[in-house]
């Protein structure tokens, strides 16, 4: 393994992950375009490397959310049934989808992500009655998922209820599928699933989504790994750079106003979408093969 290549992979993934971490995003959406468009690495190899880095970042970030008691672990395990089933379907599908179509799907996901980022996430948590009691119509499963989280601003435990679980699970199946196909954390589907369908408070949504991404990605990465489709020399530095970058990004997130960099990210996502779209059409803008 050449020193320059290892260093490039390490620094590129560190930069992508720092930038992603500053906006609380998984870095896969930046790493795959970076590796394919600028590193001229084969798309499927880039997806394999990225999916491992997505797991590493999820596990690295999950501990602090768990300690802050923001993660709803029961809801996570229920939704993971849908995301892992989606990931399994994604891996099975990936062998049948031509590379150009994968580039096109990636470009579409980048455009939707840019649109989501241009709009501010709104708190849509469903109202809880004064006692925070359960509703008679809640089934055996849903009744065990409502919970509370500590709100540091209010200084008290805030109860919340889970809405539209079936719709949430359907969207999570799609998120798992997209994650396995493209090697990304798939926030593009998880954000509407968590915010609009399940109506979770944003802090709980971010923590629970991060917690689930690791298992979702592991379901597909495990298959790619036993098939021998994960290139160690590429995935190793990318995973290491991503974990370090995500930790730096999370620290910067506290200091930098996310509003000030939101516009920049929309521009970057649109630019990457155009480049990935060109790759889908067989046009190279970066001088690659």
């Amino acid at each position, binding site marked *: *393994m*050449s*020193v320059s290549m*290892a260093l490039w992979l*390490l620094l590129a993934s560190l930069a992508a992950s720092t930038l992603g971490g500053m906006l609380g995003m998984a870095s896969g959406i930046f790493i795959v375009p970076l590796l394919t468009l600028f590193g001229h690495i084969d798309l499927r190899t880039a997806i394999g490397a990225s999916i*491992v880095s997505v*797991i*590493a970042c*999820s*596990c*690295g970030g*999950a*501990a*602090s959310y*768990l*300690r802050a*008691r923001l*993660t709803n*672990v*029961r809801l996570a*395990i*229920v939704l*993971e*049934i849908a995301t*892992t*089933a989606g*990931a*399994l379907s994604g*891996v*099975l599908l990936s062998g049948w989808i031509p590379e150009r179509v994968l580039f096109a799907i990636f470009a579409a996901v980048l455009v939707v992500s840019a649109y989501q980022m241009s709009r501010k996430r709104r708190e849509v948590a469903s109202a809880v009655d004064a006692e925070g009691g359960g509703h008679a119509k809640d089934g*055996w*499963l849903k009744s*065990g998922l409502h*919970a509370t989280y500590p709100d540091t601003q209010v200084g008290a435990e805030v109860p919340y209820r889970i809405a539209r679980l079936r719709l949430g699970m359907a969207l999570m199946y799609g998120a798992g599928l997209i994650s396995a196909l493209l090697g990304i954390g798939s926030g593009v589907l998880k954000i509407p699933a968590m915010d609009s369908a399940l109506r979770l408070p944003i802090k709980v949504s971010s923590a629970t989504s991060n917690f689930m991404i*690791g*298992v979702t*990605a*592991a*379901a*597909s*990465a*495990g*298959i*790619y*790994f*036993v*098939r*021998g489709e*994960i290139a*160690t*020399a590429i*995935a*190793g*530095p990318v*995973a*290491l750079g991503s*974990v370090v970058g995500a930790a730096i990004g999370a620290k910067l997130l506290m200091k930098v106003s996310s509003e000030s960099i939101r516009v920049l990210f929309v521009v970057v996502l649109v630019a990457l979408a155009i480049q990935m779209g060109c790759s889908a059409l067989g046009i190279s803008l970066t001088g690659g093969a």
Partner: protein
Amino acid sequence: MDVQTGHDTRIARMDAHLAQLLSAGTWLSCALIAAGLVCAVVADALHRDASAAVVGLLLMRSGLATVIALPVMRVAAMALMFARNRDLRFFAIALGVLAIIAAGLAIGIGWHSHVAG
């Protein structure tokens, strides 16, 4: 009230155990990958024999395997904790997640041996 408090304590304890597992696992995998990367890069820079590079790749590969196994171990740990708390609904769901992952691995291994054969 006591039942609710006991329930909250069990969940808080579960969160703390899972945080510990994920944190330690991430450190271990990063250390393995970093050691492997240094080995492989030094072997290349000094044009040493190929065995150092092979050791480097093996270390990195075991680090990557640890990364991939970590969330699966987390689900297995959750299944055990749900069972210990007699929370059978969520114990069964955790087993379901493990079954889907195992099915995927079985398909992957079957596919690999089919191609290799």
